[in-house]
């Protein structure tokens, strides 16, 4: 009796421990290894059941993918199609820039990654149900990058409505950007097209082209299907003529019979091509004639998409700028006379120094989803003053006038530029703690979007230990927000009367660090993006002494040699 009872009990325990049958995944052959790896390495974010609801998910933006709906962003396949195994493998291998998805190349070998792919596919039944392999996007007719192609792409950028979300200059500041949500109703932002190192699926023209044709499933980014193009199926010439006729109708003019016939013809061509595009998208069987109509019409779409891809590529620098260290350190340049104002073209003669930013995750509340990539800085100085130009991209312009409905707080864009209070005694002298100082205090210039022409000076001995301080020297401040970019111009005297203030000397490296707040991304107080310590220097003028010492040394050496020769000669004789 006792034994049966025990067996019964243990069976019951087992029944409880074994997952609910409806959640148990049918794992195809071999993916048990995949499951083990997934449960250990992926489930924290993507959830044990692949629903994108792991314990860390709440803190991530973009959210980890929910695999149960078959919506995959980065694919080499057409709109509405599932990804290929290789697509999934590649994403696991290289990760997704600008998100929390890391690369797994270094920690999982090829076989392991393949097993994970197999397992991930079990979360969505569509992978098993689809008999045909997903249709891949052809890259055969690639139009190589050229200035001409970029120009065509630029017009398409406006025509196709990219500007609505990505903004006029591509900084992700379009008028629709603040309201975008994904298929799960989570907030999502359009890409800043000028920072292609953050593109989730790669920055090559091919990668961008694939995002166009395939769309980014689950996101607000639409797919370029044939019928979404104006006058699809018409040649450029036909399209132009049809547009003239359409304009006439729109203006209330009457068409002649001949014109009416022509318009009807164009309508028919467009409609037939659009219908063929739908047949294709639905995977219907198509007659060779219809298929030809579709393929011919798509050539134009592909062409346009390549031009647009080239244009998007042109918006970013060739590579991510080097960080402002080593030879890229910020060197303030000497100017004689008045320093240039915010809009002065003299600034264009300088390159920016690039200070990358990361989310502040040391102190609560933390920022796990940084929205600002970097601060760019230029500087000039003259005999008495120094001027800085700070610039950073922000997709939304938030001043403290706007109160958040849910939290009642005001989220505002702001920046703080940080220096040590005391000059360093030498290169071995430790700097203050990089996040607003600690035992060693820091001196800050804080600027807020609600007071665009002023700076507040602060001293801080820690992130929650900040004090306003009296004004040092003469400050001049100007700022601007246009097309998703902040420009902040600050001018100050090099020296002040108070010895405790920041004193700037030529050729002395001064530590500098940044905190930036993006109100539109929920940044407030300690929730913000920060940099570590960098430095800048007032570049000394090339010394005039170079005209004196080198000739002098040469002369002396010569004299020495002559003298030596004489001595040797004398000895010999």
């Amino acid at each position, binding site marked *: 009796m006792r034994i049966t009872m025990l067996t019964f009990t243990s069976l019951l325990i087992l029944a409880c421990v074994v997952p609910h049958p409806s959640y148990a995944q049918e794992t195809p052959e071999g993916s048990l290894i995949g499951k083990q790896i997934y449960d250990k390495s992926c489930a924290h974010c993507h959830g044990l059941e692949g629903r994108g609801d792991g314990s860390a998910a709440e803190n991530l933006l973009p959210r980890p993918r929910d695999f149960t709906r078959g919506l995959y962003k980065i694919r080499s396949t057409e709109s509405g199609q599932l990804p290929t195994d290789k697509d999934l493998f590649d994403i696991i291998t290289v990760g997704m820039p600008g998100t929390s998805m890391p690369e797994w190349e270094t920690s999982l070998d090829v076989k392991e990654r393949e097993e994970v792919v197999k397992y991930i596919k079990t979360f969505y039944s569509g992978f098993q149900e689809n008999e045909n392999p997903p249709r891949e996007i052809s890259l055969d007719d690639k139009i190589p990058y050229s200035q001409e192609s970029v120009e065509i792409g630029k017009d398409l950028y406006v025509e196709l409505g990219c500007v609505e979300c990505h903004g006029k200059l591509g900084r992700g500041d379009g008028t*629709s950007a603040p309201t975008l949500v994904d298929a799960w109703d989570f907030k999502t932002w359009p890409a800043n097209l000028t920072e292609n190192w953050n593109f989730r699926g790669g920055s090559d023209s091919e990668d961008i082209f694939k995002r166009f044709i395939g769309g980014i499933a689950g996101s607000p980014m639409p797919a370029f299907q044939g019928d*979404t193009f104006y006058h699809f199926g018409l040649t450029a010439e036909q399209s132009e003529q049809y547009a003239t006729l359409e304009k006439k109708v729109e203006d209330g003019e009457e068409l002649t019979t001949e014109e009416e016939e022509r318009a009807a013809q164009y309508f028919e061509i467009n409609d037939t091509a659009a219908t063929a595009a739908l047949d294709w*998208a639905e995977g219907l069987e198509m007659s060779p004639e219809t298929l030809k109509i579709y393929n011919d019409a798509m050539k134009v779409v592909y062409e346009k998409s390549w031009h647009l891809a080239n244009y998007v590529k042109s918006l970013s620098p060739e590579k991510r700028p080097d960080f402002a260290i080593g030879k890229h350190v910020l060197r303030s340049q000497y100017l004689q006379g008045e320093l240039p104002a915010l809009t002065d073209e003299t600034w264009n003669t300088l390159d920016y120094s690039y200070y990358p930013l990361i989310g502040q995750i040391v102190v609560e509340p933390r920022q796990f989803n940084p929205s600002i990539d970097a601060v760019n800085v230029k500087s000039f100085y003259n005999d008495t003053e120094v001027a800085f130009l700070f610039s950073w991209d922000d997709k939304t312009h938030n001043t403290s006038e706007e109160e958040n409905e849910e939290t009642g707080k005001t989220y505002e864009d702001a920046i703080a530029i940080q220096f040590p209070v005391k000059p360093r005694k030498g290169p071995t002298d430790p700097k203050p703690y990089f996040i607003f100082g600690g035992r060693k205090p820091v001196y800050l210039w804080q600027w807020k979007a609600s007071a665009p022409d002023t700076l507040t000076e602060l001293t801080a001995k820690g992130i929650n230990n900040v004090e306003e301080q009296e004004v040092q020297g003469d400050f001049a401040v100007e700022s601007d927000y246009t097309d998703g970019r902040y420009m902040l111009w600050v001018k100050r005297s090099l020296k002040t009367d108070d010895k405790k203030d920041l004193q700037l000397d030529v050729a002395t490296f001064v530590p500098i660090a940044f905190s930036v707040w993006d109100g539109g991304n929920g940044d407030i107080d300690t929730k913000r993006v920060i940099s570590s310590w960098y430095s800048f220097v007032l570049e000394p003028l090339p010394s005039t002494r170079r005209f004196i010492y080198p000739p002098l040394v040469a002369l002396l050496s010569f004299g020495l040699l002559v003298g030596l020769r004489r001595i040797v000669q004398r000895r010999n004789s």
Partner: protein
Amino acid sequence: MKTKMFLTLTLFLACGLALFVSADNHEEEEKNVLVFPKAYKAKSVSNGGKINGIVKFEGEAPEMKKLEITKDQATCGKTDKFDEALVVGEDNALKNTIVYLMDITQGKDFDAKAKKPEIDQKNCKFTPHVQIVPVKVRLTMLNGDNVTHNVNIADININKQQTRMIKRLRINAMPKPQGPFEVKCDIHGWMRAWVAFVPHPYFAVTNEKGEFSLENVPAGTYKLGYWHETLGNNNKEPVTVEVTAGGEVKQDFTLKMKK
């Protein structure tokens, strides 16, 4: 011995409870699904019956939230827009409820109008708010606005840009009945509609007066279902109606806010 029995029993109960709870959660997630027959055969129906009625909202209707028009004011801001997730009219009439037959396997075919479903985006608002689309039929999106829209139906992986130049844009036909799914325009974040892909024509959407009418129903006994985007469905407890040849069945519904 008794203690052990007790323990076992408790464990058993706990286990059962756990299973019950998880099963319940699972169903909860599938709430927005209509019930479709496994197959449907269209044939001519003569002397069919009629089912009609009124759907009402129980309780005090919350005030409709005015939507914030965040862009394209010249076009979109011409008229005030309200969140249509719950539209209650005079006498508590509930608009935009789908009322339909769950288990009909043969009956009339879709009429010509039903086979050409359209959603207009005029003034940056989807009209109608709930659209029935027969399976294997393409939904047409109209854009008479001088602005760019996009049509995003994430559940069926459709996201197509419809610039101001594209006056008519068709959406892929669905081979199988499914939905209702939410339709969004991402460019104008306030725009929302619902679309259901259905296998037979016995689907009605209530009007401002909460009225619905299913006509030419072959005589027989059917399960009558409803679906509302905010108030849910009666999948668990459908109403049984008996339709006689040429007869008329009246069936009203009263829906209330879920707790």
